[in-house]
């Protein structure tokens, strides 16, 4: 179509200005795509990790500071129908030392069932045994990161390390589980429950992991545990029983909010880009007043001029949109390669931001185009 050709011609005639006009849209569209890709990538990440922890595990946490919940109390949970195994834990942070290497890691004191309940694998050595708990043994199982920090590539099993200054013997190393919800699952040290209570200087059980027999009955078991906990602790605000599914939902809702906020701020930059288009188009209208006058004298109707400027705006913004999508995908790709984080492209978001940029072109192009089309031919011809 002829009007399209004219619009393209005038864009090509002003390459630098056209590029600057598009820049706002390019930045807007590409940042929408990058932000959403990163946001959705991290949502996917978290969901994968939480999912890998098993959907048949319940977490019973005691949060109230003035309530007591001892090992014996935790054992009462075990009596609830439909439970296969429980693993009571105490936790804290400890300083590890091997030779000259110091590191702070999270300490978990627990029983032998922890391995099975959390579905963990040993890389080498053995896990904590019931006997270790009874004997308050100073033995430890290391998370894979902890092992690597302290021993590098060497085998830690049989070696001894200092935990808060006391010597412990390493009996095993866990396989990596990855990080979840911002905390690394591999920078850990696991000790017998009784030993852990001493290290954390409390006999209170913080979190108890519960493995249910049948995944389908997890909601029933959960409510039964609730009532047991209520009878033990009393105060309903001091404990919580949650499934991995609950955690997953919380995590993804947090992530969705984040994605929305990132996408929203990027969308605002798209609007700013639109204002840029309007600004440049207005400049272009007054710069080309004479041209408009000539065209009108020669027989251009209002709608011819309107269409010419509108098409110019739309072509500019859709070019900007296409380039923006391209740059967005490339930068998201660079981001994953550099940081190693997961990204997830969303085709609807790409289409949406492209359509949005087109819309921005139309909306912000209409005003200048209308202004151009209304120019009086005589006045416009006289304009220098």
């Amino acid at each position, binding site marked *: 179509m*002829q009007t399209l050709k004219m619009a393209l011609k005038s864009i090509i005639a002003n390459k630098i200005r056209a590029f600057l006009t598009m820049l706002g849209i390019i930045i807007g569209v590409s940042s929408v795509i990058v932000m959403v890709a990163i946001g959705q990538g991290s949502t996917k990440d978290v969901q994968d990790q939480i999912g890998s922890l098993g959907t048949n595990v319940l977490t019973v946490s005691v949060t109230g500071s003035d309530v007591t919940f001892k090992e014996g109390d935790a054992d009462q949970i075990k009596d609830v129908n439909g439970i296969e195994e429980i693993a009571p834990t105490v936790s804290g942070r400890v300083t590890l030392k091997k030779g000259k290497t110091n590191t702070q890691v999270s300490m978990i004191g627990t029983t032998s069932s922890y391995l099975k309940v959390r579905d963990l694998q040993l890389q080498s050595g053995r896990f904590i045994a019931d006997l270790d708990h009874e004997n308050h043994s100073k033995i430890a199982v290391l998370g894979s990161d902890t092992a690597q920090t302290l021993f590098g590539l060497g085998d830690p099993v049989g070696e001894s390390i200092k935990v808060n200054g006391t010597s412990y013997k390493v009996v095993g190393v866990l396989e990596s589980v990855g990080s979840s919800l911002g905390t690394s699952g591999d920078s850990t040290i696991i000790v017998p429950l009784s030993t852990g209570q001493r290290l954390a200087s409390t006999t209170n059980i913080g979190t108890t992991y519960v493995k249910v027999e049948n995944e389908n009955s997890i909601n029933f078991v959960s409510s039964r545990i609730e009532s047991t906990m209520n009878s033990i602790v009393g105060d309903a605000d001091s404990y919580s029983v949650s499934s991995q599914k609950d955690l997953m939902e919380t995590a993804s809702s947090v992530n969705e909010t984040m994605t929305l906020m990132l996408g929203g701020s990027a969308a605002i930059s798209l609007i700013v880009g639109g204002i840029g288009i309007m600004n440049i188009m207005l400049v272009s209208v007054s710069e080309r007043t*004479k041209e408009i006058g000539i*065209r*009108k004298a020669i*027989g251009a*109707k209002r709608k011819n001029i309107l269409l010419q400027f509108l098409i110019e705006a739309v072509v500019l913004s859709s070019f900007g949109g296409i380039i923006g999508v391209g740059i967005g995908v490339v930068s998201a790709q660079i981001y994953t390669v550099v940081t190693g984080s997961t990204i997830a492209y969303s085709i609807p978001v790409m289409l949406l931001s492209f359509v949005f940029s087109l819309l921005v072109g139309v909306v912000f192009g209409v005003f200048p185009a209308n202004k151009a089309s209304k120019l009086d031919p005589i006045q416009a*011809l006289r304009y220098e």
Partner: protein
Amino acid sequence: MTMIEPIIQIKNMEKMYELGGETVMALKGVSLDIKKGDFISIIGPSGSGKSTFMNMIGCLDRPDSGEYMLDNEKIGKMKRSQLATIRNEKIGFIFQNFNLISKLTAVENVELPLIYRGMKAVERRETALAALEKVGLADRANHLPSQLSGGQQQRVAIARALAGHPPILLADEPTGALDSKTSKDILAIMKSLNEQGHTIILITHDLDVAKQASRVVRIHDGQLYENGGEWFADAQNGTEKYYSK
């Protein structure tokens, strides 16, 4: 009497401008008939209303009162878009300062009126090139206006004016920006176009230019005078004055 029908009939046309409470009567009841195939020049000093009159004839502006028939169509009540169509089909404009679009090549400039007429690309290019041929500029078709001399630019403008074969060519000071030799070339082209059947209206303040036409009409202070007046060039201040009998 030969009955050549008039292509332009203007009766009692008036136009006034208002500027800050003051009204200027730029046209004070002007009447003029122009026959098909005429070569008429309208001559008058600066501020006499030439450009105002040309805007009326060219349908670029509307008079405050009076009647205007162009090629048997009443112009008075037409909408803006209809006026645009009239300008496109009936009138070829030639301006003092050429008014070419600087970013378009010669042939693209000539194509412009044909674009707004909705002509197909191939036919349009052929027609535009034929028009450039007529003014002897076929070899400069792909030059930009900035790469052409003033006379060549005006010839491109003439090609643009005649490309769509409008019955009327309307020229406002077409030689005003050109030297005398180039002016002669341009006038020669216009003469030959007139011989080919175009009705030509030439607006000028230069008596030598005006004399090229077969009919000379004088405009002074918003009024037209024809036949039987005398025209003097006032040597002292360079302006011409009309003294009626």
